[in-house]
């Protein structure tokens, strides 16, 4: 089992920093995660960051994403959120057991908790970038304010990647 796990990880997880942004690109401000990834990719281009930052996206977090987290120095989850009072919040994530008894789409805290159980010796620092969103209707573009929030979040994360060794 260990060999298979290693082989599946080796296909992607070779860069020390992982930015994992998630959401549905067709559901209004839920696209903040995928949009952030796209704009970050444009900024990173072929710079030095390209060799040490991996960008991944999905509709939602699921248990197999623990495999993407393995052997990293840093993992940043990025998602739309209705919680931040400002344009975005960036915070270190603590693993937390999910007591909602719903394991379909996992919270980043719950995924981290799972990761820590499956890989107790892995010491990645894990952060959450929560970007304020407002409307999540199917087929709608980002709201105007979410666009502004996104720009600020992209700038912050890019600067952080550049200046954090």
């Amino acid at each position, binding site marked *: *089992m260990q060999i298979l796990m290693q082989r599946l990880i080796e296909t992607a997880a070779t860069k020390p920093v992982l930015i994992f942004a998630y959401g549905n*690109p067709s559901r209004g401000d839920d696209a903040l995660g995928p949009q952030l990834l796209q704009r970050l990719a444009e900024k990173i281009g072929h710079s030095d960051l390209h060799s040490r930052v991996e960008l991944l996206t999905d509709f939602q977090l699921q*248990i197999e994403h623990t495999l993407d987290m393995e052997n990293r120095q840093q993992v940043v989850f990025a998602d739309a959120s209705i919680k931040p009072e400002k344009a975005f919040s960036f915070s270190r994530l603590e693993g937390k057991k999910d007591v909602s*008894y*719903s394991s379909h789409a996992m919270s980043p805290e719950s995924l981290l908790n799972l990761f820590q159980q499956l890989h107790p010796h892995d010491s990645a620092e894990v952060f959450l970038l929560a970007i304020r969103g407002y409307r999540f209707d199917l*087929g709608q573009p980002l709201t105007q304010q979410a666009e502004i929030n996104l720009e600020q979040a992209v700038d912050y994360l890019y600067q952080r990647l550049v200046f954090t060794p």
Partner: protein
Amino acid sequence: MISNLETAENPEKLKRVVIEPLTRVEGHGKVTLLLDENKQIQQARLHIVEFRGFEKFIQGRPYWELPVLVQRLCGICPVSHHLAAAKATDMLVGVKQITPTAEKIRRLMHFGQTLQSHALHFFHLSSPDLLFGYDDEVRHRNIIGVIEDYPELAKKGVLLRKYGQEVIRLTAGKRVHGTGAIPGGVNKSLNTDDRNYLQKDIKQIIEWGEDAVELIKTIYHEHPDYHRDFASIQSNSMSLVNARGEHELYQGGLRARDAQGENIFDHVDGVRYEDYLCEAVKPWSYMKFPFIQSLGQEQGWYRVGPLARINNCESLSTERAEQQRLEFMPLENGQPVHATLATHWARMIELLHCAEAIEQLLHDEDILGHDLLLKGDMQARGIGVIEAPRGTLFHHYEIDGDGVVQKANLIVSTTQNNQAINESIRQVANNYLSGHELTEPMLNQIEVAIRAYDPCLSCATHALGKMPLEIELLDADGNSLSRIRKQASGEICLGR
């Protein structure tokens, strides 16, 4: 065949108990139980909470976008929508039969999707119920609990799912939002490195698939009466089969059988689905209720998905899965198996079949071919039918002369299971809850019944603005205790 608990005689006199949201099903749903003064259940219904106007979303878009666009309908089975749309657009571009390479790449993608979807459902959504029982402590009855108590099993689930996603990644071109299937074929095949990479682990995947079948078989036989009777309903079944009557997930004819296993129709071209199936609308549900036209609404509802597929087929084309099917079918002495919880068993037989089918395809030189795409004369109407993990999936599009979608009709598998899920809920409500004090573990039994169908409620609704959603708590005297109302605009109103 529709039970008498669908509509109570005097619902205004009953107390309403709401279970919301359903846990560990895809999307969101709501069940209402109306109790009388003696806490007897007088009415049970599954409602859909979330509206998503998918068909409106699709209208006005160019047809070539469809296989990519529709993946955004559902984050759980995007590949099924991708392939159903691709098949429909094959018809739009006038291609009746795609090239062998294109078909095998699509099949490979589809087997990968079904494998990972079934693995997610069994190991992550249902195994807590199956391993710990419905009355286990809530905080423990989830995937975290599985990892704590069965760490190797949980890891197998992760890796089975990951393997399926690797198949998708290599055939669709990306981990998510893949573009592999296009109108008239595919835009890439596998190279030898891709094939060798997937071949390395497939034997292990097959072994784990077989272990999963053995596990669910053991769980089933530990409490045979419970598994046979819980949420069991007599129903018609519909699925695709190939020309030999074998189990088929990608391309075949529609077969419908009644509860005794007699054919209602067989080898029907999916393009003619409107001649055989109808959709009823009920005022209390966003989700439609499809039925077999010749039997009428009362008698014609049916079940789709793993249990229907295993019941309907003559055989499976792969050796180990077929052996497992032969062990499964005698459960009801040669009659179709109607035990709803046997769906988990059928699902694992399919997971094993998918793993074996992937291995076969990985040894087929056609998957390395370069003849990927065909073109024909444009058509105004395109219909694609496929067996998604949860059951038969129809995509129907009509386009104008500029190739822009004017009409879209999607019949997803969960919609087709709508009546069956409601019947299972009522069976459980009637047999397990009436006359007892309601507790969370007891309520979870209803969710256990629903989860057996693996419903994906997030992509099953499509009745634009038909009605606002209202939930009301009434006591036995008909007094309103609380009310929450969701307008068609999405606005939420709280109050009494």
